[in-house]
């Protein structure tokens, strides 16, 4: 049997995806099903004076119309993470009702829902619901929201502040370190709001089976068990064993499908009210308006350096938008996923970060591919390249000078940061070194100088990042405010014939778990890949799970899987020893069979499995069967890192930025399937390039989302992206059995600042140091011509 771990096996799930056989929630049609369509506020901030549903109810095919008053007694959607004020006071956590009662708080806020026999009837009747609004002033900028006199999103959150929070060394020490620096680099910038844009819009079906008093929610979520927990325990107050949550194929999430949305609870609640299954699928416009957005930070950063270019201190003040309501993970993103990453790869001795989270009259902001870590990386890497320019140093040299020295986390301690983390293992020089070799750095600088002579603007930008993945050790995140554990669950059920069904609490929505997890099982058991089936996304099949986000599936879910695999092998060894009439210690398990060491006596995996289920010749006292579950709670986060380099050319006449080359050298620990990791890096890089060059969710001052369709919201396209050149170094994770660190977010974290830094390098002859993303032709042209 060849080794399966480390092999670029083609993805087994792709057969059904490319032949149109995937089963997405909207593909499910239940008998007697009815359809929901929402009445959404056209205003960002408005009093609801009245809602008249009479005409809509009279529309042919309409069954019911529910308004905020109908669900006023139902709990709101909860927030899963609590962050406290500096003073210790609990964050402001206003109710997030399923439907608006008195006031709409963002454009697209759901005011009523129409249920009809057909999608079309529901859609038509939505126009017949007469809502009388009184439009109020809105605030959309996270920093302006905190100013005195700004319109309030929630009356009980003065100055719109959800919390103000700090982390790091005492502020005075950081102030002193920066004051005593030979050079201080200061930048003020926004990390603009972006829209996740999963290709599959959110889709939910609520179903209630009166015969068994049982609910089923089909949902396009990244974490079915988490949705069940929130739905049952917090929103509807229904018993968890009476609810099944099914999340089959999901067409991308990028974070936006982690969160528990009001529509999920509503279709479930209405299904029982009406005694009929209720389906809702967002249209693209609703996806723009209501899928939780990402980023939206406004930051001032100051970094001090001594005369040699060693970093002396870092001081950050960030305003982070929460939007109109607190989404499930929202408070954690600018704090524990952002503030804690500001050590980066550097030995910065003093760090202080201050985060003010504000409510704004906008769609909620929550985790989006990278979640906080891209914001931290953008901040640090923009500072490094800007500082290098200001101090007349080479940006690569400046990084080498400030890198934390290598440590393996096994016989060398993990690196304790100034911002509450302990890095597991790291070796940062080689990734940048390798990236420089790939790009041909010295030659490029010559080429750049020659090009400048000829009026061509070439630029190179660097980004060396670290991220905290494998989310997360429950005790640690509990202390940080998480209201859930972040372990993972696996069950390995070996069938009598030796075929293996694996039930995982991780959830695949494009990541390829059905291949990667099967590779781990096939490798460890020494059986063909085809003998392994990965089951996920159904709370009635899978015991429990925390789902997929934060690059956690393999590091946490894969570790849970290995635990169950080890239990199977341990029990299998007992059975094999009995059948082979040998001592357990004399057996070795390899290539799918147990062999008595030094002999040709052996028994295969299939025979042991059959013996476990037909236990005629069986060890006394041993239970039949070969089926194990495991919970795995990691002891630490994992810390992938890498070096990304972008090369751009800026057109002098039009300001158009062309990405010429992109080099990504990542260290994600051990790799199970290199092809899938490359794919993840490619996708992540493109998403990060999208933020740097194209994407922006723009609200006007009235709170209207004026980039509410693909006419105005630009996504990166294939011809915007050069072939991404990837390579890897391998620094295994010392604390999980596979030595893996996670690869899903790396590309999106590292790439954005590399591109922006490259454009700033290209524009350096113009004295341009800081431009807001996205770097459109217009903004670049204006910068060159002002």
């Amino acid at each position, binding site marked *: 049997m060849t080794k399966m771990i480390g092999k670029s096996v083609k993805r087994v799930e792709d057969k059904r995806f490319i032949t149109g056989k995937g089963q997405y929630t909207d593909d499910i049609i239940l008998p007697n099903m009815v359809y929901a369509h929402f009445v959404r506020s056209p205003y960002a901030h408005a009093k609801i004076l009245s809602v008249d549903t009479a005409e809509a109810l009279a529309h042919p095919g309409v069954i019911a119309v529910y308004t905020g008053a109908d669900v006023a007694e139902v709990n709101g959607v909860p927030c899963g993470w609590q962050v406290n004020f500096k003073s210790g006071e609990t964050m402001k956590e206003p109710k997030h009702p399923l439907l608006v009662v008195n006031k709409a708080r963002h*454009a697209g806020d759901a005011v009523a829902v129409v249920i009809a026999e057909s999608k079309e009837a529901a859609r038509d009747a939505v126009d017949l619901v007469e809502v009388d609004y009184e439009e109020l002033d809105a605030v959309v900028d996270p920093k302006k929201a905190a100013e005195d006199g700004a319109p309030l999103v929630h009356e009980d959150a003065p100055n719109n502040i959800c919390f103000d929070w700090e982390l790091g060394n005492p502020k005075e020490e950081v102030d002193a370190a920066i004051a005593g620096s030979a050079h201080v680099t200061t930048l003020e910038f926004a990390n603009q709001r972006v829209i996740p844009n999963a290709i599959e819009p959110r889709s939910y079906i609520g179903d209630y089976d009166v015969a068994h008093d049982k609910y089923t929610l089909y949902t396009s979520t990244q974490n079915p068990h988490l949705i069940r927990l929130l739905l049952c325990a917090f929103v509807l107050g229904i018993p968890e064993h009476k609810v099944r949550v099914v999340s089959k194929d999901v067409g991308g999430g990028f974070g936006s499908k982690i969160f528990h949305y009001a529509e999920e609870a509503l279709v479930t609640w209405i299904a029982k009210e009406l005694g009929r299954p209720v389906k809702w699928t967002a249209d693209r416009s609703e996806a723009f308006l209501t899928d939780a957005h990402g980023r939206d930070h406004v930051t001032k950063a100051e970094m001090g350096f001594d005369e040699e270019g060693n970093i002396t201190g870092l001081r950050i003040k960030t305003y982070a938008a929460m939007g109109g309501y607190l989404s499930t993970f929202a408070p954690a993103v600018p704090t524990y996923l952002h503030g804690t990453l500001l050590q980066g790869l550097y030995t910065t001795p003093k760090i202080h970060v201050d985060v003010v989270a504000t409510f704004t009259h906008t769609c909620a902001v929550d985790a989006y591919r990278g979640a906080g870590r891209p914001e931290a990386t953008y901040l640090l890497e923009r500072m490094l390249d800007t500082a290098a320019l200001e101090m007349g140093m080479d940006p690569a040299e400046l990084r080498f000078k400030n890198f934390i020295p290598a440590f393996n986390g096994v016989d060398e301690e993990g690196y304790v940061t100034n911002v509450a983390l302990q890095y597991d293992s790291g070796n940062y020089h080689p990734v940048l070194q390798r990236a420089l070799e790939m790009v041909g750095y010295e030659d490029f600088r010559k080429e750049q100088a020659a090009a400048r002579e000829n009026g061509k603007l070439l630029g190179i930008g660097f980004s060396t990042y670290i991220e905290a993945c494998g989310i997360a050790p429950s005790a640690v995140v509990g202390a940080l405010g998480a209201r859930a554990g972040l372990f993972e669950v696996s069950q390995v059920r070996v069938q009598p014939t030796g075929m293996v069904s694996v039930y995982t609490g991780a959830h695949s929505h494009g990541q390829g778990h059905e291949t990667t997890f099967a590779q781990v099982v096939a490798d460890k058991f020494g059986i063909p890949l085809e003998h392994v089936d990965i089951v996920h996304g159904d709370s009635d099949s899978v015991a429990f799970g925390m789902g997929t986000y934060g690059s956690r599936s393999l590091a946490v879910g894969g570790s849970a899987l290995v635990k169950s695999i080890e239990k199977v092998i341990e029990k299998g060894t007992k059975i094999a020893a009995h059948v082979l009439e040998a001592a357990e210690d004399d057996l070795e398990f390899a290539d799918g069979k147990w062999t008595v060491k030094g002999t040709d006596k052996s028994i295969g995996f299939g025979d042991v499995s059959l013996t476990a289920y037909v236990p005629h010749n069986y060890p006394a006292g041993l239970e039949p069967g070969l089926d194990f579950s495991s919970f795995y709670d990691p002891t630490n986060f994992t810390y992938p890192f890498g070096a990304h380099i972008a090369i751009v050319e800026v057109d002098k006449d039009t300001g158009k930025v062309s990405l010429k080359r992109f080099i990504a050298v990542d260290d994600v620990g051990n790799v199970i399937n290199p092809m899938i990791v490359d794919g993840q890096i490619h996708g992540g890089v493109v998403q990060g390039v999208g933020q740097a060059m194209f994407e922006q969710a723009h609200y006007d001052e009235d709170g209207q989302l004026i980039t509410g369709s693909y*006419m*105005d919201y630009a996504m990166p396209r294939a011809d915007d992206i050069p072939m991404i050149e990837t390579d890897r170094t391998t620094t295994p994770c010392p604390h999980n059995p596979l030595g893996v660190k996670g690869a899903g977010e790396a590309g999106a974290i590292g790439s954005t600042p590399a591109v922006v830094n490259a454009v700033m390098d290209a524009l350096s002859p113009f004295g341009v140091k800081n431009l807001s993303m996205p770097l459109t032709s217009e903004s670049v042209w204006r910068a060159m011509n002002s």
Partner: protein
Amino acid sequence: MKIEGDYLLKASPATLWEKLLHTETLAKITPGVKHLEETAPGQFIATSEIKIGPVQGSFKGDLSIKDKKEPEGFTLVLSQKSKIGNATAEVKLNIIPESAEETKVKYEGKAKLSGVLARTGQRVIGGVVKTLAKQFFKALEAELAKGTSDVEVSPTEASPPPSPEADTPPA
């Protein structure tokens, strides 16, 4: 959103004043207007059909005229509702004599959009407003040339100017 512009017409301020405040004429020359009904002096209910790039809809709502200062100008206040979003606008019209034969009508004000109208129409709306205004004044010109108000003006489909970033033509 800011609305501003001007138009030069061959008429005296007094004639323009008369035409601009004549309900039937106003209904005829205003692009897209299907119906205009005076409910009280200076107060109207208007229904119109407008197509702006990819969005089209029927609007209904109030139109009122305030701050009348004959023949120098007045302020037009619009509050229109539709299934694709609502629009409110307050536009000041100044009637300024330029010469013995010519008078300039200068307009400036602000409009606010919501809903789909704001979300997908915003980028083209500046151009649309300019086009609509131009159509309005052209129709007014025709009306002035006729002397009587029996000009047929069809409901208008405003085509926005081509945008350099648009890669699909407006529907």
